[in-house]
């Protein structure tokens, strides 16, 4: 039986390499044209080629988003661009425009086309329409329940992808032009200014808000696998390396535990806790088990939680001196309890006994983000580049 795919966002080449290293089966990226995250760094053709080469060596895949809603002017050059991306080795395009779908399937039958969630496909007849058009996969609307997703899979036999983690739109994707009207930024061409996270005046005593909590489906991954979903997608091409490493690493462990019948209640709780530590909003499952309601939104404006758990990103580990060289991200000090996690899923808990500055002078506190520091850690576990260090507990004072 095919195992479900874990699909990660990657805003740049470094994120692509890190998330694939942390266990993603495939990544989705944006090119420098035609992607719905116009302000992400995005990939040049050379970077797409390098990313595809990197992924293919790991037997993994790269998908390119080509999911803007095209205006006349956007059509100029798109066919040439598609050819360049195909030549760079892309495995699939994520597309919302049926003309573009038709063009790719006609000219590059060996390249997959995935229907973007921008189409908000929400029923089996619409999926069947696109099946007849040659679509290889449909990313469903985020407004569907478990039973609705299952019925679509059962009736169409089309590969289905669903979002499992990250920010949610308030409105149907593709059916919101609030950004166009309020800020003149084109929501459907990558300029969304997230007006749904603004607060509006009313005649009532409290402002009107409609901001949604984030999606977190950790507790329902088993359900999604059982009903036959083919790909589990994490949102967030503009998220940090630490966030992606944590989220992808955690879902990798969760999915593997399900397939090996090793997912206990305690393990699930631990994994959910890890996800919670990188969340900057509360989470919900939105439409999956019930109709989305008042519990899935915020009511007092944007409430974002910032935590300082992320302490550093490993540059290298010296097996002789037992020193971890790392970029610091947040303040910590000798005596704090930390965890180091690696791309292969190893987690090492330890207390900071010795800390050094860039010149390897002994210090008590790592104060300055982006500076290089060293921690002493005696371990035989392989600690590669892009391992991450997080805070578990401040020292007792």
């Amino acid at each position, binding site marked *: 039986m095919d195992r479900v795919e874990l699909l990660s966002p990657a805003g740049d080449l470094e994120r692509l390499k890190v998330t694939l290293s942390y266990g993603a089966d495939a990544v989705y990226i944006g090119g420098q044209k035609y992607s719905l995250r116009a302000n992400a760094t995005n990939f040049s053709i050379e970077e797409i080629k390098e990313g595809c080469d990197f992924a293919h060596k790991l037997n993994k895949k790269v998908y390119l988003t080509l999911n803007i809603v095209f205006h006349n002017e956007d059509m100029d050059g798109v066919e040439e661009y598609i050819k360049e991306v195909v030549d760079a080795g892309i495995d699939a395009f994520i597309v919302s425009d049926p003309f573009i779908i038709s063009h790719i399937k006609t000219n590059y039958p060996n390249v997959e086309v995935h229907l973007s969630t921008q189409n908000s496909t929400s029923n089996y007849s619409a999926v069947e329409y696109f099946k007849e058009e040659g679509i290889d996969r449909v990313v469903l609307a985020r407004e569907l329940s478990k039973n609705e997703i299952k019925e679509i899979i059962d009736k169409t036999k089309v590969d289905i992808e669903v979002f499992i983690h990250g920010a949610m739109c308030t409105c149907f994707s593709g059916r919101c032009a609030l950004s*166009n*009207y309020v800020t003149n930024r084109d929501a459907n061409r990558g300029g969304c200014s997230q007006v749904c996270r603004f607060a509006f005046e009313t005649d009532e005593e409290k402002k009107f808000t409609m901001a949604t909590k984030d999606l977190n489906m950790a507790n329902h991954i088993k359900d999604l696998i059982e009903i036959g979903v083919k790909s589990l997608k994490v949102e967030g091409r503009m998220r940090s390396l630490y966030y992606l490493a944590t989220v992808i690493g955690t879902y990798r462990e969760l999915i593997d535990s399900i397939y090996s019948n090793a997912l206990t209640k305690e393990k699930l709780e631990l994994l959910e806790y890890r996800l919670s530590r990188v969340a900057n909003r509360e989470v919900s499952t939105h439409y999956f088990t019930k109709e989305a309601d008042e519990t899935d939104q915020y009511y007092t404006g944007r409430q974002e939680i910032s935590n300082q758990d992320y302490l550093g990103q490993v540059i290298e580990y010296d097996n002789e001196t037992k020193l971890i060289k790392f970029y610091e991200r947040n303040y910590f000090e000798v005596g704090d309890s930390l965890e180091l996690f690696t791309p292969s899923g190893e987690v090492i808990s330890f207390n900071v006994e010795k800390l050094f500055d860039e010149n390897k002078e002994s210090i008590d506190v790592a104060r300055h983000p982006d500076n290089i520091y060293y921690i002493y850690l005696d371990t035989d576990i392989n600690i590669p580049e892009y391992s991450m260090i997080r805070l578990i507990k401040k020292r007792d004072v």
Partner: protein
Amino acid sequence: MKLLIEPSNKNNIYKDIVNGLIVSLKDYSVQSPIYYSLDEIKQLKINNPQLEIYVNINKNLLNNDIEPLKDILKELDTLNLNGIFFYDLALLKLKKELNLNTDLVWSQTHMVNNYKTCNYYHSKGVKYALLGKEITLEEIIEIIKKSTITSMVEVLGLPSVAFSKRKLITNYYKDLNKESKSSLDVLEKVTSSTYHLAEDKNGTSFFLKDIINGTSVIKDLYDNGLEYIIMRGYGIEEDLFLEILTDTRNYINDSCTDSNYVTKYEKLGTNTNFFFKKTIYQVKKNG
């Protein structure tokens, strides 16, 4: 050029002035002021044989909608309607599956923005396209000229801006611990613009509470061969709407040569929507 309207009052459809009506099918459409049952649509057609009648089915359809909708579509197909406005691509599948004769109008609110995709839909048997409201007049004219599909352009009405499946007004009033309402006006302070929200069982619709005044572009559209303009009565007083429709009818009949028409309707305000305003695509250029 023909004039279609979406009425906001079932008792006043201006049948002697307009060429046709767009009526929203109850339970299967959203973002409309009033909805018609299948029986009401039948009566409308019988009582107004001179009018072109289009039915709007623009909901994001769910699995549970499909089977009952098939029965409705079969009945609608017997009425010799002029077209069905659709949002959900299920309609294309169902037209083929049920071998329906009624023409389709591609009406995906914010997505009908380029001539190549219009041509794609035309090649799939779709006869008309209601062009998006977030593109410029220049883009509209390019579509009219380069596309094989028959274009329609909305030139008057409150712009529908967004649609959510969530019950956003209900949720707001639950948080306030007050009895909910079916509509709510909210003010965005930076732009000083008011949005009108309307909620029903399908979700919440957003409208900019500022009428699109496209009277000044009708001549350009006419000169470039547009076949249909659409005016929506929602949010406009009935007497004023009647006056606008009457004058627009005469203006079109006079080949859009009466310059007093445009001057007169400056009174409707300066909101020309995106006819002369391009949206920003990329805020920051990447290297």
